[in-house]
Each structure stands twice: as C-alpha cells, then as structure tokens.
C-alpha cells in the first residue's frame, strides 16, 4: 500500500490560511520543500496534520483548541483538510473546530468508504496506521528525536510496537478478560449467594484498581512532563546567565566541568560496583574467612578423591573390587558409610570454590583498590556539589541584582521540582501499602494479586476452573509471544539501524548499544549532540518506515537546522532514499548544503514552495518581486516559484518575524 500526502488546506487557525498541493506536472512530487520563516506556523501546521490524520483532535482540551485560534483576526471556526492518496484512491479528512463551543469534529470522504461520512472514518486498511502512536513516526518533529534517546521515555520501543501493531496482543488479552467475566457473571445468576458476593467484591476491586492505575499513570506522565519543562527552563536559565558578560566565561566553565564530573562519576561508579561484585574486595575479614574454610577443607581432605557415587555404585554390585562378595549386610554398611562422602557434583563445586580462593590475593591491596576507588568517587561527588553550589551562587547574585525574569525561571523550576517530589511520594505510596483491605490499598500489585486470587475462588465455585485455566494459558502464551516477538524484531531492527548510523557518522562513530525503551548509546559515550541526536533519530525512523511492504510519506520540521554542514550533506544524501515521499518545512538558512545538495544529486521530482504570513514587509516583497502566487488569502501567500524560493533572504526574513 503506497500512502502519499497530496496536500492540505488550512483556514481559521493560527498559521496563515493556505492551500498547499504536492501536485507537480499531474503527479505527486517525490520531494517537497515548504519554506516558512520562523513564526509562520510550522509547529501549528504539524500539529494539525498529526491531529487530523490520527483523529486525536476530538480529545483536545479547551486550552488546546484556544491555542490554535487566530490571534490577529476574529474567527469563530477553523477548518483543516488533508488529502491522502492510497494507491490510486483518495481519502479526504476534514477537521472542523468551533472556537466558541471548543468542539472539534471530523468528516471523512472517499470512494473507499462509499462517499462522505461524519466523523473520523478512514478506510479499514488505513486505521491500523492512522493512530496517534504511528502517525507521529512519519509526521515528525524534533521533540520526538530527543525523546527517542531520553531514558525517561519509551518512545523507541513504542515506535516498534506501533509499526508492527504489537498492541494487538494486549487487545486480545483484554478481550479474554471480558470473555471470562461474561461467562462467570452469566453463571453467577444460576448459582448461590456466595458467587454473587464475590463477583460484587471483584467489581468493586476492579473499579478501585482502575482508578488507582489512572492516578498512577497521571502522576507518572506529569512527572515526565515536568521533567521536560525543568530541562527547558534549565536551558533558558543557562542562556540567560551566559548572556551576562561578567559571568559568561565562568559559567561556561562550570557547566563544562559539571558535565565532565557527571561523566567521571558514572564511570567511577561502574568501576566501584564491578569491584564490589567480588566479595573479597570488600573486607580483609571476608578473605580471611575464605582462607579459614579452605584450610579446614584441606585438613579434612574435602573434597576427597572418592565420592559418594563410588560407594553407592559399589553397593549395587554383588562383588567388591577386591573380589569379595557383597551381601545384604555389606550393602547396608557401604550405603551408611557413603553418607560420609560428598557427591561428585558437590566435589566439583568445592574444587572450583577452592581454586577461586587460591586465586585471591593475601595482601590488602585488593581491598585498598576498592577503597581508593570509593574515595575517588566521593571526591568527584564533592567536586560536583561544589560546582553546583557555585552555579546556584551565580544565579543568586543575578537575581539579587534585579534580574526578575531569572528569578521567575528559578522559582518556576523549584516549584516543578517540588511538585515532582510530591508526585514521587505519591507513587511510592502506590508501591508500598501492601496489607489489609485491598479496597483501601493503593498498591497496584497487591490489589491485582488479590483480584487474581478472587477470580480463582470464583472459578472454583462456579465450576469454571477449566475455562479459567485455558484463559490463563492463552494469556500466558500471548504475553510470552509478545515479549519474544518484540525481542526478535528489536534485534533485527537494531542491526539494520546500527549499519545506517555507521554510514551516517563515519568520522565520529556512534555506538548504539540497545533499544530498551529508548535508544541507548554504548557505555561510556556522553549524550549525543543535537546534530547526532537528529541523525540517530532519522536513521531509526527510516529503518522502521522502510521495513515492510507499505510506504508512508515522511513529513519533517527543520530537518537540517542544527546539523553542521558535514552531517547536513550526509543527511541530504539519504533524504531521497528515506521514503517514497518526503515533505519538509524549512527556513532559508537550511537551504545551503541541504536543499541544494538534494536538488543537485537526486533525480526525484522536487517542488519548492514558500508560505509567508502577510505583513507590511512581505506585502512589499511580493509586490516588488512579483513571484508566482498560487494562493492569496486573508493572511497568507503561497508562492510556487523556484527563483523566489532560492533568493528569499535570511536577514530580510528576520524583519519578517
């Protein structure tokens, strides 16, 4: 199935009203650059594309909707229409937003669904892919790139789940639970009061568990969101302080030293833990005990050369190795004496143990090695604390000298950190509190275990034991299959992904260790730079999107912005290969070493559009240059003109903003 974005139109939203088409010479262009200066609404457009394709707009809050409203003109409605090509058919999804009632609704039309339908209703062959989790893989913004490498998020694993629709396993398990509940409830009508009572208790517990899980999930998500905000605020604080000439150099040094200290602390901690895993490194007394027991074993001649097995086997024979007959008395005595000997297996264990003890050093050096490493770690921690203290001091100085904005940022950051501590305490409560009435407990595992026990009891009483065991077996198989499938797929994807990354970064090799929730870089590598993060993210996503037999467009915001020219050229060389259709929002500074490389090296059809917000400057520019305007709306121009596209100037663009 080949899916392409044919175009879209926007009216009434924050971004300029505009109709854009990817059509070029009666075919869909392979590559389309949409040049939009900063502030023209790239983020809004991406959000609308995402929400329309995935149907997620109907879950927008009042705030979400009001944020999309035009600011400069009074409008009551917004309409965003997306046209998709599915092989040779077309699907049109129309999002309508009422800014007065804060309601978002859809309308879908296609001959694949028999015409026009109210609601978000794409054809069945699309619904598996047009869900929020999958759409964000091909309507891509930089935030996802960061999250793919962020340990706090599971975006990389989620992307694999979305691509291969592994959530189907969870859906089936959920249906199995419903099936079991239906059958036991049905039977409970025919049986005695005991089952009714237990079913009532079960219902209450399931509702209670659901509420607790929702609260847990809300708290976890809030912590993650707060962490993102804290990170953003910290960056703003750093920028603000570095703008003050007096503190710039010192602050820069402190930040660099903190990063360096964090890296050293991580490495040193791992070294310490590696040594602690060998007990002899911890204390001389441990080594001394090992030597004492070994000495004892040696004196006792343990393990002996002869094992228990020898005597047991001997007792089973009729004649001894010396030739004498072994009667019943002799057998009995031999078996009794055999207990004084160790089995051959334990003999092997003891020999290994004694060898390891022999290998231990008698000197105190091994303990000193661990102690020295711990002391070094402690020093690094103290140094880092000192640097953090210095950092806070500089901020304090600036706040006291009247930088109110800095004060506000620090205050906001502190409030978010405090909120996270409170939320974490709440989450700790959900993980403890594992006794007493489960209806009063907040411990998810405890309540779930109680529910499982109750279901077992109901199954026994209502004579659905067989059904329950079959359901349980099936659920186990599904969970196991899901786990194994995901592991295998992840391994295959990882290999291809690593090759792609190696190709993209030949001069600064990046080692991808694993995909475990997020993308993990190898051991001692520090966090990737902005450019590397984007490069890694492209490599990962394109590995996924090119996996199966379907083809998806790739829509990217600012693909080259933070990349240096070398990486830009590399990314530009793979862009035409990323997907059947590539659409990119860019600003003029992304043209050099990116757009021009793609135009030069690719034989694909390339469309270059410019979308401008109407201002005094742009009005003047358009009237002066007289480009080919294909859409002239209330507040925007859509210009399909290569000459205009390539000459649109950066400095003048800043004036436009």
């Amino acid at each position, binding site marked *: 199935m080949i899916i392409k974005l044919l175009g879209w139109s926007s009216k009434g939203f924050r971004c300029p009203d505009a109709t854009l088409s990817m059509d070029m010479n009666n075919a869909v262009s392979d590559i389309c650059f949409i040049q939009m200066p900063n502030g023209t609404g790239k983020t809004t457009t991406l959000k609308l594309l995402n929400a329309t394709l995935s149907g997620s707009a109907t879950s927008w809050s009042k705030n979400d909707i009001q944020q999309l409203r035009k600011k400069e003109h009074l409008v009551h409605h917004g309409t965003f229409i997306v046209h998709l090509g599915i092989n040779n058919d077309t699907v049109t999804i129309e999002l309508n937003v009422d800014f007065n009632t804060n309601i978002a609704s859809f309308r879908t039309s296609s001959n694949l669904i028999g015409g026009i339908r109210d609601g978000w209703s794409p054809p069945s062959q699309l619904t598996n892919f047009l869900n929020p989790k999958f759409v964000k893989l091909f309507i891509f913004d930089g935030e996802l790139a960061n999250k793919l490498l962020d340990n706090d998020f599971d975006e990389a694993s989620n992307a694999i789940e979305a691509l291969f629709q592994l959530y189907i396993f969870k859906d089936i398990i959920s249906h199995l639970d419903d099936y079991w509940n239906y059958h036991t409830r049905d039977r409970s009508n025919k049986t005695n009061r005991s089952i009714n009572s237990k079913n009532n208790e079960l219902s209450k517990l399931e509702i209670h568990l659901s509420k607790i899980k929702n609260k847990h999930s809300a708290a976890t998500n809030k912590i993650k969101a707060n962490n993102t905000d804290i990170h953003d605020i910290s960056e703003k604080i750093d920028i603000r302080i570095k703008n003050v000439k007096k503190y710039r150099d010192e602050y820069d040094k402190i930040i660099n030293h903190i990063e360096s200290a964090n890296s050293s602390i991580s490495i040193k901690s791992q070294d310490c833990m590696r040594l602690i895993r060998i*007990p002899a490194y911890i204390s001389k007394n441990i080594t001394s005990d090992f030597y004492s*027991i070994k000495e004892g074993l040696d004196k006792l001649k343990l393990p002996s050369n002869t094992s228990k097995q020898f005597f047991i086997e001997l007792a089973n024979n009729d004649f001894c190795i010396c030739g004498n007959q072994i009667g019943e008395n002799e057998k009995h005595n031999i078996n009794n004496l055999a207990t*004084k000997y160790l089995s051959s297996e334990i003999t092997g*264990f003891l020999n290994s*143990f004694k060898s390891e003890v022999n290998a231990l050093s008698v000197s105190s050096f091994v303990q000193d090695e661990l102690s020295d490493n*711990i002391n070094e770690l402690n020093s690094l921690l103290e140094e880092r604390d000192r640097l953090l203290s210095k950092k806070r001091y500089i901020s304090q100085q600036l706040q006291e000298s009247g930088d109110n904005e800095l004060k506000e940022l620090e205050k906001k950051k502190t409030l978010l950190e405090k909120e996270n501590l409170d939320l974490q305490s709440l989450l700790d409560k959900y993980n403890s509190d*594992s006794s007493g009435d489960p209806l009063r407990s907040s411990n998810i595992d405890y309540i779930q275990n109680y529910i499982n026990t109750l279901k077992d009891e109901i199954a026994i009483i209502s004579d659905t034991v067989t059904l329950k065991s079959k359901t349980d077996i099936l659920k186990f198989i599904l969970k196991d299959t899901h786990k194994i499938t995901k592991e295998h797929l992840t391994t295959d994807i990882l290999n291809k992904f690593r090759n792609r990354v190696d190709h993209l970064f030949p001069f600064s090799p990046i080692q991808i260790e694993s995909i475990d929730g997020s993308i993990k870089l190898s051991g001692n590598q520090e966090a990737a730079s902005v450019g590397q993060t984007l490069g890694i993210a492209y490599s990962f996503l394109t590995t996924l999107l090119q996996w199966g037999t379907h083809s998806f467009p790739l829509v990217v915001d600012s693909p080259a912005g933070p990349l240096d020219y070398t990486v830009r050229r590399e990314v530009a060389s793979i862009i035409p290969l990323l997907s059947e259709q590539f659409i990119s929002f860019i600003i003029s500074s992304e043209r050099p070493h990116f757009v021009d490389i793609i135009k030069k090296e690719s034989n694909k059809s390339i469309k270059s559009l410019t979308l401008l917000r109407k201002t005094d400057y742009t009005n003047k520019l358009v009237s002066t240059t007289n480009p080919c305007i294909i859409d002239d709306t209330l507040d925007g121009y859509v210009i399909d003109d290569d000459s205009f596209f390539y000459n649109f100037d950066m400095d003048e663009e800043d004036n436009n903003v």
Partner: protein
Amino acid sequence: MFRIRVESDKWFNKLRHNEKNIFKTKFDLYYLFFLNGIANIDKNPLLSKKDSTSEIIDYFPSDYIGSRHLIIGMLVITELKRLGIDFSDKINIQEKFHELVDPDTPSKLTLKGFSIMNDYANKGFELLQEQIKDHVDLAPEFLVKVHSILTNSFD
C-alpha cells in the same frame, strides 16, 4: 528463585532513574542487601505471602559468574558460624554443603539455599533501611554510603 521485598522496588526505580549502568539489575541491590545481612550474621525469614515479595531471577547474572562460588561460599561460612559449627567438623560441613548447594541447578543452590540466602538479603534490606536514614536517591551516593556501611560491619 532469588526473591526480594517489594518495598525495595521503589529504591531500585529511584536509583536507576538517571543512571542505569551502575545497578543494572535488581540482583545488584539484592546482592548488597545479602552482604549486609551476612555482615551482621543475622537473618529474618521472608514473609510467606507471595504478594509482599517479588521474584528476581533463578540464576546469577553474567556479572556474577566469576564470583558466584565465593558468594555461595560466604553463605555456607556464615551459616556454619551462626550455628556454631567448627571448620573442623567434617560431617556437619558436608551436610551443610549438601543442604545448600546443588551444582545441577543454574544457580548452584538448592531450594533451601535460595531460601536462606533470601532470608539474609531480607534482613540486610531491613537493616539498611535503618542505617540509611537520609534517603539517598542517586546511585553513586548510595554506593558510597553502602560501601561504608558494609566495610564497617565486616571490619
């Protein structure tokens, strides 16, 4: 199966929040709790209800393959000391090894061996909760603190 109190999950999650390469698995925490229990030659049986413990694994992780004989050796030595069995008492030493060691299992432990090791880890965890009064969320700081507690207990 190595088993650990569910309350320790909260520690594990916090300690791994910013740094996943120090305490790679729950067994790393379990091992520290075990050492603490051993160091104090005391143990506390794990609660019998399954819902207050969580399973970890039934074998030593790869980082411990090189030292598992020594770790099991520590278990045997501590039990001998706790029961007042002299290192020259051949019969009791053999019995103790037979009781705790099963080389045919992935862990080299018998069920009894697991149970007693879990008991020491449980006690070690309880003691550590009292010993670390100021809550430590960061893995490096926790490691420094635990090392200090262990060396004081053993020395």
